[in-house]
């Protein structure tokens, strides 16, 4: 019943395993901003998924009789230079952002984590080569690399995903490699006592729990970063071009309406604000997750 406790050692008392889920959610929602972000992201997801139901008009249909209208009750965000309803295009733009965001992150995370595990596990020259390739990828400004690849691959959403995906692989790879290496260090200690061989499966078993948390945080933040980068690409006219609806492209088209008369700043600011809000929400959530998952806070007195 009573545990044995020996005086004389500077022993840290193990924290009782309080329901960590409850703690997690409590810390996560402690900050109001994090809650607001979660709410915003849910809205974003809903709009993106249900865009066809939410959009009052067909986002691709031109209507030359009603071009460049100011925001009104009929057109919540006005119309663009081809008479298309800007609000509907914003909704479909959310869909584009969502697809590109999740697609890119999934693509990059899977490849990056795999390469990182490989590099950490195998070490030696495999590690050296993989890490140098990552360095090379990081040597390009993300936008320039994505530009290069997206331009070369051609237009279309898949190519944007590949381009941005390749550009963002290094983040996951390095993270996974570092996590694998740190487990490998400890594994040697355990291996002295262990009888079995140090196999890839055991490595995975030990590495994944360690690495999963920073990867989750990275994924969340990268979702924001990728959406921002995609906005840059479509702004320049690469990747998703009109009539496809992408927030960056809409902002670029709206630029003309900003500086010339008649002025419709909404056309350029509305998509920009959407981008900023979504990226903010992802970043904020990533921060919140990082705090909630911080192992140092676990069982802290």
């Amino acid at each position, binding site marked *: 019943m009573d545990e044995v*406790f020996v*005086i004389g050692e500077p022993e840290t008392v193990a924290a009782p395993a309080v329901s960590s889920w409850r703690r997690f959610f409590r810390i996560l929602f402690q900050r109001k901003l994090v809650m607001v972000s979660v709410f915003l992201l849910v809205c974003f997801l809903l709009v993106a998924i249900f865009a066809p139901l939410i959009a009052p008009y067909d986002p691709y249909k031109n209507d030359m009789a009603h071009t460049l209208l100011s925001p009104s009750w009929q057109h919540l965000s006005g119309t663009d230079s081809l008479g298309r309803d800007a609000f509907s295009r914003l909704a479909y733009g959310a869909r584009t952002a969502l697809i590109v965001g999740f697609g890119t992150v999934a693509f990059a995370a899977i490849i990056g984590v795999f390469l990182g595990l490989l590099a950490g596990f195998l070490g030696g020259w495999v590690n050296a080569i993989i890490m140098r390739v990552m360095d090379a990828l990081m040597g390009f400004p993300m936008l320039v690399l994505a530009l290069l690849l997206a331009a070369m691959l051609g237009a279309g959403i898949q190519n944007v995903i590949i381009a941005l995906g390749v550009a963002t692989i290094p983040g996951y790879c390095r993270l996974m490699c570092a996590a694998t290496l740190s487990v490998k260090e400890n594994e040697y200690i355990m291996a002295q006592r262990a009888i079995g061989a140090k196999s890839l499966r055991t490595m995975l078993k030990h590495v994944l729990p360690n690495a999963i948390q920073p990867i989750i945080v990275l994924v969340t933040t990268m979702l924001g970063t990728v959406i921002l980068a995609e906005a840059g690409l479509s702004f320049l006219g690469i990747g998703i071009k009109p009539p496809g609806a992408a927030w960056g492209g809409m902002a670029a088209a709206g630029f003309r309406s900003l500086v010339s008369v008649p002025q419709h700043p909404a056309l350029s600011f509305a998509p920009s604000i959407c981008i900023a809000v979504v990226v903010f929400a992802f970043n904020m959530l990533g921060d919140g997750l990082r705090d909630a998952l911080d192992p140092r806070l676990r069982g802290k*007195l």
Partner: protein
Amino acid sequence: MSAQGETCDMPAGDLLRVNDLQTEFRVEEGIVRAVNGMSYTINEREIVGIVGESGCGKSVSQLSVMQLIRRPGRVAGGEVWFQGRNLLQYAPNGSEMRSIRGAKISMIFQEPMTSLNPVLTIGRQLTETLELHLGMHKKESRKRAAELLDSVGISSAESRLDDYPHQFSGGMRQRVMIAMGVACQPKMVIADEPTTALDCTTQAQLLELMLSSIDSCKGALVLVTHNLGVVARYAQRIYIMYAGRIVEQGSCREIFYNPRHPYTVGLLKSIPRLDEEKGRRLVPIVGTPPNLIDLPSRCAFYPRCPVRTERCLTEDWPELEPVSESGHMARCYYSDGRADA
């Protein structure tokens, strides 16, 4: 004793008198009373041990005396009389406290590996105190720093002044910490687990070094540790702490040969001794240290005490009561020696 804030006349020989010190930390789960009404005295040139297990509040109490407690902690009450003045009335970063820290009271910390700034030379970290408190000029302070390094047993002291901490071993870094601690000839040196992070042979050397350094500047030493062996060898008086309070105090001899508080008895029974007959089983203290959040007012040692009774559960923790004529005191209803059966 006059009210807090005014000066007080202290009996000759008294260097430090701490009255009912309370330090608390605000955490999500509640308030942690790390120091829960602690009173003790240090006399000039004395060596006093403050003993307890991890988390009992001994380090926090010393940091409180030096006003080094930061958010989320704060010193919530009590008085710290040093040379006739209550230190707690001064702002933690005010000029009064700053003139005392490092100059009149100094502290040697536990972790030599992290307690020195990695981007500054050892020499700089020594000379900055000398220049600040003793007003020395660059050349003077450098010479004195070399002397200090030499006195703690670091060879080629002069050239080592320009080395960085990472170029020293753990034991040598701790010697540097000792040198820093005695640099300005303080009246009192607080050593917080000074040798825990080192191996046994180095421990002994370092302790001897510390004692002789402090002795040569005529200071008192407060040895904060969980290591009874260290305390037995060097301390003249000992305070035993548990859950933020002192549970027994007395001379070294009294504590070791006539322990009265069940906790002290338990501590002593759990360490092996060379002068015992072989085959005695080590008797650990059962249970785990208490959770300091929202402590009940009854005796904190109750869950683990072998001689507890109903009374210990229903009544508050008693005050320190004398056990003998000579200042040996214990905080227990049953300090008549039954625990040492």
